[in-house]
């Protein structure tokens, strides 16, 4: 197991280096300059500012400078968005709200989704099943920003249950964005669990469990549930991505000072080091999620446990 994880860490490193390289050059191709109101500056003034951030250097030099800093864990300093602040500090200070709504959304979504899926499978072709199908279709087809606005309007404005936006009331502020983020994982989990539960419930070992005298709930929870979870783990990765991309939009709508919101703004103002830093941060997050997913497989499915050499 340790060897397997070690191997994966090396791959992670290579992946990150590639992502950093691609992002770096793609960003440089983009039109626009991080120096705001660059037009109003005289060429001399511009040269001074560019020199300060190393933007006057030839591209390869900039690239190697950046990668060298990255190796040492230095993400550089913000050019204009947070003038002169260390990118690592910016990201860390912004992580809290994002992590909170992301985690809450994911948790709420998967738990409810699993529940809906289970109930739908056990009460197949009843109104419970159809109801959960409708919820799932809505969750998948309606984008999170539409949900976000609806939640703001009904739960926030009309019924005044939760704050409409901003990050001022602690947990209460996080409720609506979390729900908005939860819809996609909820819908995905519900569909996957339903399909898989129905398949598992029809398998031979469930019949054998029945033949042992197991009751309906014992069969569902002791025998079927764990087996039905296996494919859900596969979509945990894409779900995490949806939480990330969802948070880019949702944080904007709810005016939450999170990474997503900051990332979107940094692109608008071409703050190179913030864009790079956030991209790398998101990449690390995703790669770690994928690693966790692969390890989870082994935990849930003993047949996969031995892969990657002996533990």
């Amino acid at each position, binding site marked *: 197991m340790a060897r397997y994880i070690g191997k994966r860490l090396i791959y992670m490193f290579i992946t990150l280096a590639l992502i950093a390289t691609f992002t770096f050059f793609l960003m440089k191709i983009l039109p626009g300059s991080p120096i705001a109101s660059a037009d109003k500056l005289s060429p001399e003034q511009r040269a001074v500012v560019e020199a300060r951030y190393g933007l006057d250097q030839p591209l390869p030099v900039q690239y190697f400078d950046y990668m060298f800093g990255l190796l040492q864990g230095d993400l550089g300093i913000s050019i204009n968005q947070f003038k002169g602040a260390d990118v690592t500090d910016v990201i860390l200070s912004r992580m809290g709200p994002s992590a909170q709504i992301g985690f809450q959304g994911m948790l709420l979504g998967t738990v409810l989704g699993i529940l809906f899926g289970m109930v739908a499978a056990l009460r197949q072709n009843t109104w419970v099943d159809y109801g959960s199908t409708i919820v799932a279709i809505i969750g998948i087809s309606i984008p999170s920003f539409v949900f976000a606005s609806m939640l703001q309007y009904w739960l926030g404005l009309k019924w005044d249950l939760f704050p409409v936006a901003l990050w001022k009331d602690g947990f209460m502020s996080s409720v609506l964005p979390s729900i908005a983020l939860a819809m996609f994982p909820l819908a995905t989990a519900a569909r996957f669990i339903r399909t898989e539960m129905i398949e598992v419930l029809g398998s*031979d070992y469930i*019949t054998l469990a029945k*033949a*042992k005298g*197991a009751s309906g709930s014992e069969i569902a929870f002791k025998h079927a549930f764990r087996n039905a979870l296996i494919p859900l783990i596969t979509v945990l990765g894409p779900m995490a991505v949806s939480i990330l991309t969802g948070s880019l939009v949702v944080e904007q709508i709810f005016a939450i000072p999170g990474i997503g919101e900051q990332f979107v703004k940094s692109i608008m103002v071409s703050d190179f080091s913030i864009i790079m830093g956030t991209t790398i941060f998101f990449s690390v997050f995703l790669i770690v999620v994928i690693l966790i997913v692969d390890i989870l497989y082994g935990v849930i499915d003993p047949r996969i446990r031995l892969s990657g050499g002996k533990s």
Partner: protein
Amino acid sequence: MEKILQVKDLELSFHTFGGEVKAIRGVNFDLYKGETLAIVGESGSGKSVTTKSIMRLLPEATSEFKNGEILFGGRDLTKLSDKEMQKIRGKDISMIFQDPMTSLNPTMPIGRQITEPILKHQKISKDEAKKVAIDLLRLVGMPKPELRMKQYPHQFSGGQRQRIVIAIALACNPQILIADEPTTALDVTIQAQILELMKDLQKKIDTSIIFITHDLGVVANVADRVAVMYGGKIVEIGTVDEIFYNPQHPYTWGLLSSMPSMDAEDAKLYAIPGTPPDLLDPPKGDAFALRSEYAMKIDMEQPPPFFKVSDTHMAATWLLHPEAPAVEPPEMVIERMKKFPGSRYYEGSAN
């Protein structure tokens, strides 16, 4: 002998999109204590459905008991509630399935799968149940059972898995063990081992076995009595010798003729012509009539009743009616009958 299970006039249908499939159309048999009753027949003859209906393992939404009763311990199993059935399943009646590769839960250690019915039906502690499970594994011939309790099904071979399934089935010393083609998915050498094991265990715990198979070689090996099923009915039932050496129903003749034989000179294998009847719209008379060269006019119109051949032997064919013309069974069957005292071709040289 003590009757442990009685199936009387059992009729069962499946509701499908195509209509009502009459899968069992009046099945009668008794199971005696300690005996092995083999149910043979081709795919779709209703043998698996019969036993699954005894265990009530058929999907309740689509299957329906139309008539008859299954008497066990003074109770009619067709009328019991789910809760009451759960107390019988795995304790009094248990089952071994066809495919050991899929009948164990892949994500549960086998130890827990064996202790599950023990803990469910007996009031003993987990540690005691574990000991029982280890003893069971030893009983079914699993080497180093203590070490293997924590392993998962994928760490065992097919034959070993079927041994585990047998251990699970025997966990509560059931009165009836239903084996639904337990050797079909195994290769021949393992088949023989599993059959030996089952015979051994039956002696040890004195259980009755209903053995479903379409392999007549296996039947000859394990059964005391044989019921031949066709088109959702039993067409002939008798002791294993009676069925093998004095068969009366043309379908049984066909089955026996289609058994490959080592000493047959002309090595062409016989196959019964035609296909099994469509149970969405079962034939009016004898279900086998359309495939039988011995069919008479009445076979097309009226289903034959059971005619008694001996105290233990009955067959549902009009050929046994006193007014029926005498027909010659296939030569291969006559050869067999010559060895059977009491058959009309008996030559006096038994075995």
